[in-house]
């Protein structure tokens, strides 16, 4: 048998959030190494937050990432409130849920329509979709109407879909205008058919890379991105505040981001696929009914089903938001003043791309002493490399341009966010 040697380098991955490259070495027909290199330059947020008053922290940490800024915002607020032993009001919880549903709708839609969908049509970009072809014309229209509905929901509740100004520790600076709620319900109802089309497209997509692995996600009785306990695919694992004890930090000397395995060195995946594998029964009843056929595909080890899982989560967030908006009116409510003392708080939520962990240790006067942030892309980094290695090993004879495209598709399926990944790097090197 002819043994193959080659290197495959992608300097700059495209249609992903942030900057990353890929370097693969094959020697004598065996994949020797796969390096997923996050190349965004660090901005050192975990150092920058030290010594600042906690009041400034949520807006500072939101700047870790543009697309999932509201996830960092809410995780940071949760960490501060937990440190202050504060429980937010029922209305605040509803407004945070709505803020988050707006994020999920907008962020997943950005990934699925702008980044992934062109691959399904063998096109370079959504902008190359043919407006004279009915399906492509429809999808182009769907793209911007679905994204807009998520954006508008976040604007109604949180003031903006990027770096939202209204959520703060203790509540919201401003309450949504109840008079505007009916138009948002109408807009959310109007995009449901588009999202059902999207679910059908990804359910019928034949992209496949199955690799059994562990999965981690927050699980609650409801399909909440904001509350719950840490589960893996087999059942309950730990309380959210203890997640860090289950994770092993791994330094990848070629990447500007940290990576993680479980303590037992097992790699794992986080994200929408993990959430559906672990908690699909908790989805909104209407979502479960209308996406019943697609939901039969879960649990799944096919990483491309992360795309399908995201599409289903958009539907869930629409249905949850319609319920909340239809059954509540919001009253003006002054944000509570938190009583701070020396303590450590934990904020753990399901960001669009997976489990997000914020830990803050504060002093008696409300100053941040130190903290730690673990983002989903860092947790998925090793799983990405293992998936690529498996794919390459099984497809050594494919032409390089085909391998390049397929590797990009696998990475895109994870929806990685390099801005998040490179916010910080532990100062500890395996090699100089």
């Amino acid at each position: 048998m002819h043994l193959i040697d080659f290197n495959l380098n992608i300097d700059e991955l495209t249609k992903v959030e942030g900057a990353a490259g890929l370097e693969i070495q094959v020697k004598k027909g065996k994949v020797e190494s796969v390096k997923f290199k996050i190349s965004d330059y660090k901005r050192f947020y975990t150092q920058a937050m030290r010594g600042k008053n906690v009041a400034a922290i949520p807006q500072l940490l939101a700047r870790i990432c543009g697309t999932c800024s509201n996830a960092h915002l809410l995780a940071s607020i949760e960490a501060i409130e937990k440190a202050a032993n504060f429980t937010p009001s029922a209305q605040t919880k509803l407004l945070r849920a709505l803020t988050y549903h707006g994020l999920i709708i907008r962020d997943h839609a950005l990934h699925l329509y702008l980044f992934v969908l062109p691959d399904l049509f063998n096109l370079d970009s959504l902008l190359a979709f043919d407006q004279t072809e009915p399906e492509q014309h429809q999808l182009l229209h769907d793209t911007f109407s679905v994204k807009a509905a998520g954006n508008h929901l976040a604007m109604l509740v949180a003031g903006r879909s990027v770096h939202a100004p209204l959520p703060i520790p203790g509540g919201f600076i401003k309450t949504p205008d109840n008079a505007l709620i009916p138009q948002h319900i109408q807009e959310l109802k109007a995009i449901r058919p588009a999202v059902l089309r999207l679910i059908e497209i990804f359910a019928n997509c034949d992209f496949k890379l199955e690799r059994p692995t562990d999965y981690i996600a927050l699980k609650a009785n409801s399909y909440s991105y904001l509350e719950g306990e840490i589960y893996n695919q087999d059942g309950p694992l730990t309380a959210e505040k203890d997640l860090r004890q289950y994770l092993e930090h791994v330094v990848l000397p070629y990447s500007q981001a940290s990576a993680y395995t479980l303590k037992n060195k097992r790699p794992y995946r986080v994200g929408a696929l993990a959430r559906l594998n672990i908690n699909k029964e908790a989805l909104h009843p209407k979502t479960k009914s209308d996406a019943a056929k697609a939901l039969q595909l879960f649990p799944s080890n096919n990483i491309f089903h992360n795309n399908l899982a995201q599409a289903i989560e958009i539907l869930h967030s629409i249905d949850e938001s319609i319920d909340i908006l239809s059954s509540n009116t919001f009253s003006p409510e002054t944000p509570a003043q938190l009583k701070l003392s020396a303590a450590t708080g934990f904020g753990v939520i399901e960001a669009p791309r997976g489990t997000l962990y914020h830990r803050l240790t504060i002093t008696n006067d409300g100053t941040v002493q130190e903290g730690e942030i673990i983002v989903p892309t860092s947790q998925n980094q090793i799983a990405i490399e293992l998936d690529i290695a498996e794919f390459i090993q099984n497809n050594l004879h494919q032409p390089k341009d085909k391998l390049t495209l397929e590797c990009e598709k696998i990475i895109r399926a994870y929806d990685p966010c390099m801005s998040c990944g490179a916010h910080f790097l532990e100062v500890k090197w395996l090699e100089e």
Partner: protein
Amino acid sequence: MTTAKLLIICYNKTAFMSEKKLKVGWFSFTCCEDSTILFTELLNDHYQTWLPKLQFVHARVLQTKNIWGPMDVAFVEGAISSDSQAETLKKIRQLATKVVAIGACAVTGRPSGQRNDFPPPLQQEIDSILKKFNYGKKVKKLDELIKVDAAVPGCPMNEQKFIEILNLYLTEFAIN
């Protein structure tokens, strides 16, 4: 060839030429890419108007086939963290007739440049990373390195200012 056919060809050529587009690039350096996200949100309302008028020469977030070639306007987001980023920025400047700084990091250097203000103990803590990945001594805003023709401040960028500048260049470059 009949006169009628010739007229049709001439008409089509004229129509094609009238579809001149603004050649744009969208580049991100050190930042959270919030303005990129905001730009994709602006497309929700403006894609039918803008897409027929814009040709994306280089936009990593939107397409794989990107060209390092001449462009009318380069929109540049993010601050500059290293010599290699500075070189890329200078290359963009050479290729673009107009360069627009997008968002707070490009315009002011902050918050991505927050390490510039770190006290010595924090600076010492991050030094090994700066050396290993060839960071520059300081993070710089765009106009410390190149001539910037226009700026859209804000974190994320001010949407109305962006629309205003885009419309200005559509007019200046005679894009109908």
